[in-house]
């Protein structure tokens, strides 16, 4: 998990800010004993650190601190229209970890949050409680969708990065196993897949790997594993029978010859993994709420922030013509090698 540092920046998690209420949860102890070199600072409420306006999220990425807090607010949210719901009506997401150690230039979290410090909510049991309540509510009202819930649990972070210090995976796997009416989705770019080998694959747990051409990874997805390593992780879990989706999302404009590069990329995927075994593929071009884009421009120096996007209904994305061209091109390339009924466009 260590990110290479300039010698004058602190280690990742050099500081842990702990809400006094979080001390009542055993998970807090477990996490702090694993990070026993970190300095601890007690706080009353995580927003004292997380939501301050006068921070610099760009620099914080060099040395993120950890915040341990109790979520007292909402635990599950209705999915955003910017994301795909696989034609299921009951698409929800939850976030027990907020922010990420990867550093993608297009990450909407950088526009949404005032801080890049990593926030863990330690009252995981309250999440399970709340989700069970929702499952029951939906069961009683079959007119709402097919009585099933699709829940993305890594919406505001790449949670697999943290399994070593916040052991959540077993609990979610147990929960999925006990609750067949819920499908849980974990989105990741990490290659931290080995933990899954300790469990039997579940029909209702999907791992979605987000992949991009290697050139885009190098330019815009700092600290993330290479495409090759991601594909290797995918093929390992596919062999073990895990249900895996691919997200070609966000598709980025990577220069005038983007078509060639995406073509090459799609070819390389089909060579490295058995696409027939992939459960679904989603496609979507870069899109972001315009207010988040404003914050990108204030702090970040990536061309992703300054491209002349078009904004409709508060969402900025590539101009319509380029957008359609990109989607159509990638779709048509994929269609040649993958069953199109399982391709979803966001």
């Amino acid at each position: 998990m260590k990110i290479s540092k300039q010698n004058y920046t602190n280690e990742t998690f050099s500081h842990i800010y702990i809400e006094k209420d979080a001390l009542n949860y055993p998970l807090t102890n477990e996490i702090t004993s694993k990070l026993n070199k970190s300095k601890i600072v007690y706080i009353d409420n995580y927003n004292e650190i997380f939501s301050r306006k006068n921070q610099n999220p760009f620099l914080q990425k060099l040395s993120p601190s950890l915040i341990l807090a109790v979520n007292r607010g909402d635990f599950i949210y209705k999915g955003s229209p910017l994301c795909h719901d696989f034609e299921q009506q009951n698409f929800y997401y939850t976030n027990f970890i907020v922010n990420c150690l990867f550093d993608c230039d297009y990450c909407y979290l950088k526009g949404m949050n005032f801080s890049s410090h990593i926030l863990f909510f330690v009252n995981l049991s309250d999440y399970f409680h709340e989700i069970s309540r929702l499952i029951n509510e939906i069961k009683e009202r079959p007119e709402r969708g097919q009585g099933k819930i699709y829940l993305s649990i890594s919406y505001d972070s790449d949670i697999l990065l943290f399994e070593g210090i916040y052991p959540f995976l077993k609990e979610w796997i147990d929960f999925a196993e006990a609750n067949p009416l819920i499908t849980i989705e974990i989105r990741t770019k990490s290659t931290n897949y080995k933990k899954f080998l300790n469990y039997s694959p579940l029909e209702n747990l999907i791992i979605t790997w987000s992949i991009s051409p290697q050139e885009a990874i190098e330019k815009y997805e700092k600290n993330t594993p290479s495409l090759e390593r991601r594909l290797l992780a995918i093929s390992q879990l596919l062999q073990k029978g895990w249900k895996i989706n691919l997200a070609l999302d966000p598709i980025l404009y990577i220069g005038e010859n983007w078509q060639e590069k995406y073509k090459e990329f799609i070819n390389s995927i089909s060579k490295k993994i058995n696409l027939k075994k992939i459960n679904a593929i989603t496609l979507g071009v870069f899109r972001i709420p315009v207010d988040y884009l404003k914050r990108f421009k204030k702090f970040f120096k990536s061309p992703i922030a300054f491209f002349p996007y078009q904004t409709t209904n508060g969402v900025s994305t590539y101009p319509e013509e380029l957008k359609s061209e990109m989607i159509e091109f990638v779709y048509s390339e994929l269609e040649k090698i993958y069953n199109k009924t399982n391709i979803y466009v966001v």
Partner: protein
Amino acid sequence: MLYIISAIDIEARAIIKYLNLKKTTDRPFETYQNEEVHLVISGVGKINAAGATSYLLKDTLKSYTHNDYAINIGICGSLNNKFNVGDLVLVNKVVDYERKRKYYTDILVEHNLKEGSIQSIDTLHSNYEFEEDLVDMESSAFFEIASKFLSVHQVYVLKIVSDKVSKNQPLERLTNKYIDELIRGKLEEILTFTKSVSSLLKQFQPLLQQQDEEIIKKISISLKLTFSQMKQFEKAYAYFKSNKKVSPLFLKEYFNYIPKSKKERDAIFEDLKTKLYK
């Protein structure tokens, strides 16, 4: 630029001497400076600290560099056994005791200093509760005001423990010589810390610097761009710089070009935009 705030003259004396700072003003606060450091002596207490901080940091808002940082340096009392007399402590939590406000610096920089929390109180005579590790009379006001000018990773409190405070015991009177020696003993460590902060801050420079703003302004004037064109121009300029990692200096050619008509201006403008978005 490093901005230093100390409450009393003797807390700053060693620093002024070591950095060879020259006195610049007497009123409303005594200030000293050289090319890299500005120092102010605020006087004792939160109101003085707030006023002096504000006075000292007023120019940082104009800065394009983001290399500015402010440190409150001084002595403090220790309220528990975590720290000994003579310890230099980087404060990670500042509490305004009377107003119950809390401030946290963002410690992104690596250092070997001890860290602890401090409570700032209004008067030394009141019978206050010992809630944090240390106690002083300025840092909360300093922090509150400084973080209105700067981001929290640019604001620090460095304190040297001068005495142990115990309940219902009268405070010792500290001599000037004693305080001066305490500070002098920690000068090296203080300056090592400031160097690290300064290196970290150099990592973050806003995309558009003063030179860029000047180019944008000059061309907008000479080409007589409309307000909306100027805004578009700024965006295209930023795209070029973020993409190519250099400023579009080729634009200097247009500095003295005066278009003969609106039509010509619009044509040049479109051409400029195309070049910048390439």
